[in-house]
């Protein structure tokens, strides 16, 4: 149980190895540099700024780019603007400055449905007012592929079952979301994102509040998804998770990008210390990653 998931992560890392270390994005201009500069980022943000008022600025000049199939982790202290950044990248909030490009076109030019074909978003918190059957819950992810007033058909049901199956959740279809454990529910919510069929998964704090075993389970699932070519962008407070999943990392603090690089850079106490304003020690501590 301990080693197998590691292997999945390892495969995922090697599969993406070439793209990862090589492509470095100059955040200010949003242009790709390095050896693979021909690659157009699948999702790119340039000079984003946002504030609830003149005093309460949340983001200032944030730029980032994610290549197709890449994993990007966004770290940062509480209140750094991570969730706001994700809201802008998924089109929920309009930036007050700068813009988001999805597959080379402005995100705001996409219709809601076209956007939903490409980006699936998993918020950290989600109210679940009713005790839906797991299969129905995952079926809701099929929305962008259905006409407005259509009922889900056999094809949608197959897609939903496949999504559950791919996360090892086959057999949970007839259960109700209210009887799932925290980790199971998180997997079911991710399955709903997969049923959406989008190539970009944006997840806000996917492992926060989970116990270590469930956190590891979710991490393995994400590693598996990265392994099959999904573009994954997520936030976390768990630095170990960022290192475990690999890819690129971005540290946001006070609404600005403090540091950006390969996620292996998160092993550097100095980088972390500067971003979080606290001294990090690199001694061995119990970790599931």
């Amino acid at each position, binding site marked *: 149980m301990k080693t197998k998931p590691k292997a999945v992560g390892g495969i995922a890392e090697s599969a993406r190895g070439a793209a990862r270390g090589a492509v470095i994005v100059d955040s200010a201009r949003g242009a790709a540099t390095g050896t693979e500069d021909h690659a157009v980022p699948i999702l790119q943000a340039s000079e984003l700024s946002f504030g609830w008022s003149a005093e309460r600025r949340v983001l200032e000049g944030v730029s980032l780019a994610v290549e197709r199939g890449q994993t990007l982790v966004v770290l940062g202290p509480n209140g750094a603007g991570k969730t706001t950044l994700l*809201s802008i990248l*998924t*089109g*929920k909030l309009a930036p007050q400055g700068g813009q988001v490009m999805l597959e080379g076109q402005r995100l705001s030019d996409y*219709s*809601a*449905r*076209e*956007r*939903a*074909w490409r*980006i*699936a*978003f998993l*918020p*950290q*918190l*989600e*109210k*679940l*007012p*009713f*005790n*839906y*059957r797991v299969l*129905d819950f995952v079926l*809701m*992810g099929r*929305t*962008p592929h259905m006409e*407005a*007033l*259509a*009922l*889900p058909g056999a094809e949608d049901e197959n897609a939903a079952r496949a999504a559950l199956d791919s996360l*090892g959740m*086959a*057999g*949970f279809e*007839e*259960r*109700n979301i*209210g*009887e799932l*454990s*925290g*980790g*199971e*529910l*998180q997997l079911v*919510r991710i399955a709903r994102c997969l049923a*959406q069929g989008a190539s970009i998964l944006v997840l806000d*704090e996917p492992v*926060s*509040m*989970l*116990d270590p*075993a*469930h956190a590891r389970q979710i991490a393995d699932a994400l590693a598996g998804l990265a392994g099959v070519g999904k573009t994954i962008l997520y936030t976390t407070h768990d630095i170990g998770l960022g290192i475990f999943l690999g890819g690129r990392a971005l540290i946001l603090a006070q609404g600005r990008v403090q540091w950006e690089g390969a996620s292996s850079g998160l092993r550097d106490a100095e980088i972390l210390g500067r971003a979080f304003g606290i001294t990090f020690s690199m001694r061995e501590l119990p970790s599931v990653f």
Partner: protein
Amino acid sequence: MPCSARLSSRRLRVIWVSSSKVGKEAKGAPPGIRAQGGGAEGGARGSEGAQGFKGTARGAWVRRHLSGLLAGILFVVFALALFVGRYPKPGFLNPAAMGSDPLARQIVFNSRLPRMLGAVVLGLVLGGAGASLQAVFGNPLVDAGFLGVSQGAAFGAAVALVLGLRAYSLIAVLAFGMAVLALALSLWLAERFRYGGQILRLILAGLAVSAFFSSLLAMMKYVADPLSQLPDIVFWTMGSMVPMGWKRLESSAPIALAALAVLYAMRWRVNLLSLDDTVSHSLGIRPGVERKVVSVAAAAGVGVMTAVCGVVGWVGLVVPQIVRAIDGPDGRSVLPRSMLGGAIFVLVSDTLARSLFSGEVPLGIVTSLFGALSFAILLTVRKVELAR
């Protein structure tokens, strides 16, 4: 993970979470925190066994065929109720007597039939509106009359009565007009509130508008002639199917049925709207717009029936609760079943209201009485469906 073990027993496993737990977990706790250990425990929970109705084989059969069952019950109740009443004496009217008794024919076809059809339409609308509003507001305590529709209609009727407009069509027009005005006011106000998310704003706006119109209604009661007008107003706010005849049925039912058609067409869509707005947005729908479509359809249906029958409470709140408790919250089944259940509820209540005593009991009193009782029983006997 013992998935197969769970698969085999999953039919038997229902863990109802009591409402107190709901409250605790809903607050601040993100989903996925109710960390209940790993897989082994999951298997153990699998043998926890069925609790009540949902686990038994008969229960499964009932759940699968609930819509048909309800339709059958409605049909039977309707057929029976047509011959129940106080003519020629309290109890059953022998259908065979109709051939020789023209008054019996008159009563059955021109009084009971339109009235009962009206009760069915009213019940369909109240149940359907309640179920869909509860879904799209993600709040099982919302009912058909919220957003000020009921109070607005009551105020409109009171104005008509105080102005001495005795013609029932004028009362209905004013009541419906005020219901629409109340709805528009709620939606407008919700847009302007600078507090809370869309759902909270709409609920608060509905609350404010309801309170506003009920105070206006109180004012009308105060200025009304206590001997002639006040009893009329009070009686109207208690709800009754007495005014429902063929003509009023013809003018109100089409609007109500159109509203029902809209709600029924959105029976899957309301599931999506019950999700968090962040999620439904990322699924490519516009929750704000679609929620308003459902609200307007529900309010129009309820408003037009309320304009004729007065305020009939509790149906839209209780019936969807019961339906969801039996077979889960999926709108595809909850909506049609709530409509049918509402129709049965109102039809039975109205039949009792007109036949139990020599003087007719206002329908709203009967529905509130049964509604409140069944609600209390539902919440104490069954553990109500959970929310996290």
